[in-house]
């Protein structure tokens, strides 16, 4: 172990310097010679037929280079945006997969649907011209609520898709679950909403595209979490650009959270238009356009039932969920409320029978896709709310009911009834630590103290598990993924012994430039300041699937370790020759190749020097140079888990909920950099707290207009909305990744909504409240308090 910069060291981040000095290089900062500016004109209607678009007056305005419509794209053979993950109906038939043109042609299906792209010398000229484009809309009745969308006679989002239904998916065993319910002593029930969210990374989406006619070559700089996937999807499926003629660069990206892991129409159109105009084009989304065009998250309506025996053991779980797909299928849309949701419904419990049905529904809203946690926060919220309801109804302590049903550490690997098989974990240990850290036993005293100040105090606990490290290709392809989801890394040893790593994941805040350097440092005993991590450029990095689903360390890090091991293996061969020993006698320790059991050795630097210097080694057997590449496809998901505990104080006069403490104990496998992990947890928890208490994307049901389309209307958590969070890791090791890592990017967001809402319900339980929908805003909580006798929630 290299104590200074290797695994387990909280070294400061290598990437910070450019960000704290204003030298970051975000897409909006990129400037190309002769660059034009583009803006999108977006539909003000939720649902309308486009009868005509008159661009003549606008095209004649000062500085306007070109105006493109969906018809222009279609005439030029531009394809539709592909969906990369198909799911099947319960009867085995495929989901409905309507074509999605890059720009609306004859119909708009949500407010914000792009109808024209205006390109001009300056941004101001483009904006002015956009106002002069005349679109003749024939407004149609719109439907934004999922429950309305599946009612007979509802407006059809797609004329040829009955009941606006994309799919009726199921998982688990309906018969076994029915049998479990038949012998239940008690059935707990809940119906709940998982509120629609807007991911809102602080950097708005943007793209700069440049077509080089001399080389017939395209470059696009984009705010993407997965540039190589953009290259494949856009080049191959939409624009018909050969892969060797297309370069995608995702430079510094200001936050992703899932929002930037899709192929977006704006990327396609900006790239295409750069060829049509013959000039580079920059497009930057405004925040208000981001609300109307970034894929959204969550948005479920669910009913669930838990069957228990008389002692409180879980016998069976039945879940029926309706999930919003929005007005089109986004890149991974259908996968999120199905495979990333239903397959997590066992949680950390031994529930033997589970059956989950999910109906995916089209509405006249922005498409819904992955947002941090993606499906797993929804599964955790439903399950952990239901467990609290069951505990309360059966008068069992909510910690004890969890402990009673938890998978014991000795039961791993654990096969769930919903496909996934957990490799490792110890949920009871996490729970015990969390109870201690949160001083669960001392809660009554704190509640009394709050009461003396006129405040209602509640405590909530949530245990969770998630599947991440996306993804074992064989498993996910059997679940509908249309590609492999492996990762790759190249380790380039420079002649001087310095190291460049080229990796297919993308760093947009996660600290990869530091964490990945720590892995190489650990393995090669090279200090991290001699290691550079390169990512985000398809011309530099061989291939990669990008960063999402807490995959970068578990999958990318394992590819990196594999490539580094190849360096060591090659180095051993060269060292064997230099030391005149057999390959098999060489061991690599602390940066040196040694003949085992002797003091004869060659340093890594000497061996690399020999590799490039060709000092008398058999080039018929060994190639010169020192650069190795590895691809890694995981054998299973990784399964981080943990226990979170929160306390809230509620002012009954105002309904304001204050989160006063938050304890997280997480099993994320081996920790490479505890400081970075802490930051990931803080941010993840803050986003989950945002969903629980503040954030809500609301559409007006009559008009289909978004009512929360700016930071003035959509409540992003601020610094004074959050307490200092107490983060502990208590890890078991993953059995199939390098170093036993599991992933930590999403765990905070997965555990926190249920934890916070369980605490809010606990604070109100004396009023007979057994559920509060998210976000638990002052208005909603105040009404619950003041109408507690009438169970207002049922009426909402």
């Amino acid at each position, binding site marked *: 172990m290299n104590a200074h910069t290797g695994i387990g060291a909280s070294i*400061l*981040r290598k*990437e*910070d*310097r*450019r*960000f*704290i*000095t*204003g*030298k*970051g290089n*975000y897409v*909006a*900062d990129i*400037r190309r010679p002769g660059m034009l500016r583009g803006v999108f004109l977006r539909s003000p209607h939720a649902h309308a037929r486009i009868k005509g678009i008159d661009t003549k007056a606008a095209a004649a305005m000062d500085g306007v280079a070109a105006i493109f419509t969906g018809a222009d794209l279609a005439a030029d053979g531009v394809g539709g945006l592909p969906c990369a993950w198909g799911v099947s109906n319960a009867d085995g038939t495929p989901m409905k997969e309507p074509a999605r043109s890059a720009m609306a042609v004859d119909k708009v299906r949500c407010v914000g649907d792009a109808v024209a792209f205006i390109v001009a010398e300056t941004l*101001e000229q483009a904006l002015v011209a956009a106002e002069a484009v005349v679109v003749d809309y024939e407004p149609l009745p719109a439907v934004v609520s999922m429950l309305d969308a599946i009612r007979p006679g509802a407006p059809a989002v797609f004329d040829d898709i009955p009941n606006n239904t994309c799919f009726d998916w199921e998982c688990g065993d309906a018969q076994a679950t029915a049998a479990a319910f038949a012998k239940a002593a008690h059935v707990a029930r809940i119906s709940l909403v998982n509120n629609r969210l807007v991911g*809102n*990374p*602080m*950097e*708005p989406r943007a793209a700069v595209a440049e077509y080089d006619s001399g080389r017939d070559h395209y470059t696009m700089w984009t705010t993407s979490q997965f540039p190589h996937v953009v290259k494949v999807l856009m080049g191959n499926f939409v624009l018909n650009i050969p892969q060797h003629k297309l370069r995608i660069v995702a430079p*510094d*990206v*200001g*936050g*992703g*959270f899932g929002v930037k892991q899709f192929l977006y129409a704006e990327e396609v159109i900006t790239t295409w238009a750069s060829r049509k105009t013959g000039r580079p084009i920059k497009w930057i989304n*405004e*925040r*208000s356009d981001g609300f109307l065009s970034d894929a959204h998250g969550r948005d479920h309506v669910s009913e669930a039932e838990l069957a228990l025996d008389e002692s409180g053991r879980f016998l069976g779980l039945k879940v029926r969920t309706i999930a919003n797909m929005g007005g089109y299928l986004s890149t991974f849309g259908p996968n999120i409320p199905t495979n990333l949701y239903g397959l997590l419904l066992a949680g950390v419990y031994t529930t033997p029978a589970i059956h989950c049905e999910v109906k995916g529904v089209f509405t006249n809203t922005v498409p819904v896709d992955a947002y941090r946690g993606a499906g797993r926060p929804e599964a955790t919220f439903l399950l952990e709310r239901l467990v609290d309801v069951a505990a309360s109804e059966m008068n069992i302590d909510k910690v004890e009911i969890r402990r009673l049903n938890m998978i014991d550490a000795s039961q791993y690997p654990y096969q769930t009834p919903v496909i996934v098989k957990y490799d490792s974990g110890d949920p009871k240990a996490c729970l015990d630590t969390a109870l201690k850290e949160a001083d669960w036993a001392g809660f009554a005293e704190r509640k009394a103290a709050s009461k003396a100040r006129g405040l209602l105090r509640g405590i909530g606990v949530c245990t969770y598990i998630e599947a991440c490290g996306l993804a074992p290709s064989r498993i996910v392809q059997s679940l509908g993924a249309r590609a492999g989801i492996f990762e790759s890394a190249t380790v380039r040893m420079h002649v001087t012994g310095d190291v460049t790593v080229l990796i297919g994941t993308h760093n*947009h*805040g*996660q*600290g990869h430039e530091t964490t990945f350097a720590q892995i190489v440092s650990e393995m090669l005993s090279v200090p991290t300041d001699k290691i550079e991590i390169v990512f985000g450029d398809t011309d530099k990095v061989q291939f990669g699937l990008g960063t999402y689903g807490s995959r970068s360390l578990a999958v990318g890090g394992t590819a990196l370790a594999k490539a580094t091991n190849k360096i060591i293996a090659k180095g051993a061969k060269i060292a064997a020759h230099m030391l005149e020993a057999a390959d098999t006698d060489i061991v690599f320790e602390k940066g040196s190749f040694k003949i085992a059991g002797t003091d004869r050795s060659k340093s890594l630097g000497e061996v690399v020097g020999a590799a490039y210097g060709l000092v008398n080694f058999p080039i018929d057997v060994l190639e010169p140079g020192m650069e190795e590449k590895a691809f890694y496809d995981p054998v299973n998901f990784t399964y981080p888990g943990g226990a979170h505990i929160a306390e809230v104080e509620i002012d009954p006069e105002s309904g304001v909920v204050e989160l006063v403490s938050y304890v997280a104990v997480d099993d994320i496998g081996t920790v490479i950099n505890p*400081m*970075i992990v*802490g*930051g990931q947890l*803080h*941010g*993840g*928890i*803050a*986003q989950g707290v945002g969903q629980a208490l503040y954030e809500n994307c609301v559409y007006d049901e009559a008009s289909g207009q978004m009512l929360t389309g*700016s*930071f*003035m209307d959509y409540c*992003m*958590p*601020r*610094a*004074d909305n*959050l307490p*200092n*969070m107490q983060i502990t890791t208590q890890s078991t090791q993953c059995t199939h990744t390098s170093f036993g890592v599991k992933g930590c990017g999403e765990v*905070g967001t997965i555990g926190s909504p249920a934890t916070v809402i369980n605490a809010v319900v606990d604070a109100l339980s004396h009023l007979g409240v057994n559920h509060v929908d998210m976000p638990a805003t002052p208005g909603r909580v105040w009404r619950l308090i003041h109408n507690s006798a009438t169970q207002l929630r049922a009426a909402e």
Partner: protein
Amino acid sequence: MKVELSINGRAVSADIPPSLLLSDFLRENCELTGTHVGCDTSQCGACVVHVDGVSMKSCTLLAVAMDGRSVTTIEGLAGTVGAELHPMQEAFHVNHGLQCGFCTPGMIMSAVDFAKRHPSPTEGEVRRWLEGNICRCTGYQNIVAAILAGTKAMHAPQGD
């Protein structure tokens, strides 16, 4: 319109449209892209700069209104203390007060003004001050720690 101002200690004169925002002037005309734009309603604070030493959202200011004023951006902050890094920049680094880095310039510029006004602040004062700066990555915890540490460093006796 003609405008003459100082940006990061350098005299700048320009002939610009009266509608040009300071944020756009800095980013587009002066190529100082460390000042970021994260919203269009003056909520996010990614564009905070100093005008005559006071933190302001550059997206709410007209560039022509800066005539005769002195503007400091994140690129010029270290220069104000004649060091490679301002103590607040150093504190953000040491306390892991940033992740994606997009809100960071505005956060740091806002924090420096806060520190000048609050030599020995409480955590609550820091959190309330940040009402106008949104971060989506950090949950603010390490930003708050960084600002407390940076404030302390800014007010430490010279020569220590």
